[in-house]
């Protein structure tokens, strides 16, 4: 564990989480959510949880984002909030 690295990523996490929820475009929100997942994957790696980081990279940043974007493409990009 490297605590400086930890604190920086954690702050970025909160920022990306807020952005993902505030962006009005759903495609953008999904992509920011992908960034969020990638950051959290870095965080796991930093904390020594390599297997969790690997899974998060494959699932969170990979498949979740892809299926979310697939849904946005087949429904709508518009969002009121």
């Amino acid at each position: 564990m490297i605590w400086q690295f930890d604190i920086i990523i954690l702050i970025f996490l909160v920022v990306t989480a807020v952005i993902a929820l505030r962006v009005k475009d759903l495609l953008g929100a999904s992509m920011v959510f992908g960034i969020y997942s990638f950051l959290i994957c870095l965080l796991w790696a930093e904390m020594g949880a390599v297997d969790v980081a690997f899974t998060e990279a494959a699932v969170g940043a990979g498949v979740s984002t892809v299926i979310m974007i697939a849904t946005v493409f087949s429904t709508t990009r518009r969002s009121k909030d």
Partner: protein
Amino acid sequence: MDIIIASFLEDSIVPKFNYWIYVILMMIGLYAMITKNNLIKKLIGMAIFQTAIILLYVSVGVKADANIPIISHHGEKDHVEHAQNENLDSASEGSSHHGSKKEYHVIDKNKFANPLPHVLMLTAIVVGVSTLGLALAISQKVHGSFGTLEEDEILDQLRPGGHD
């Protein structure tokens, strides 16, 4: 006053920073799940909520100067103190004598991160993506029949026809 603040920082904020952020992320996610109007936004909130819980668990398993929970066999003496002969790679050794324990290492448990939270969170991530996938499918079905993903517009559509 300054001392109080400084000691508060030292005792409650810095060593527990992970836990503070986990609570904040969880609150963001929960708030989005409850109040957001758009179904996809609710699901993004749900994913954030679940990662916050994962953050709690993984933070529990961290040890100050520990390595990843994989025993390395490349002569890293500071991680693993080898006992005597170290031919672990050959699988046939184990079969020839079951009871002999001396070929194994003496392992310092403080040198490895706690593996149990990692295992639990692998399961939780899998559960998270399954829920997300199924929820996205349901929201596509909702969009297919109502033509919108906004909750208030859907409820507006239901009001004249619905009797409840």
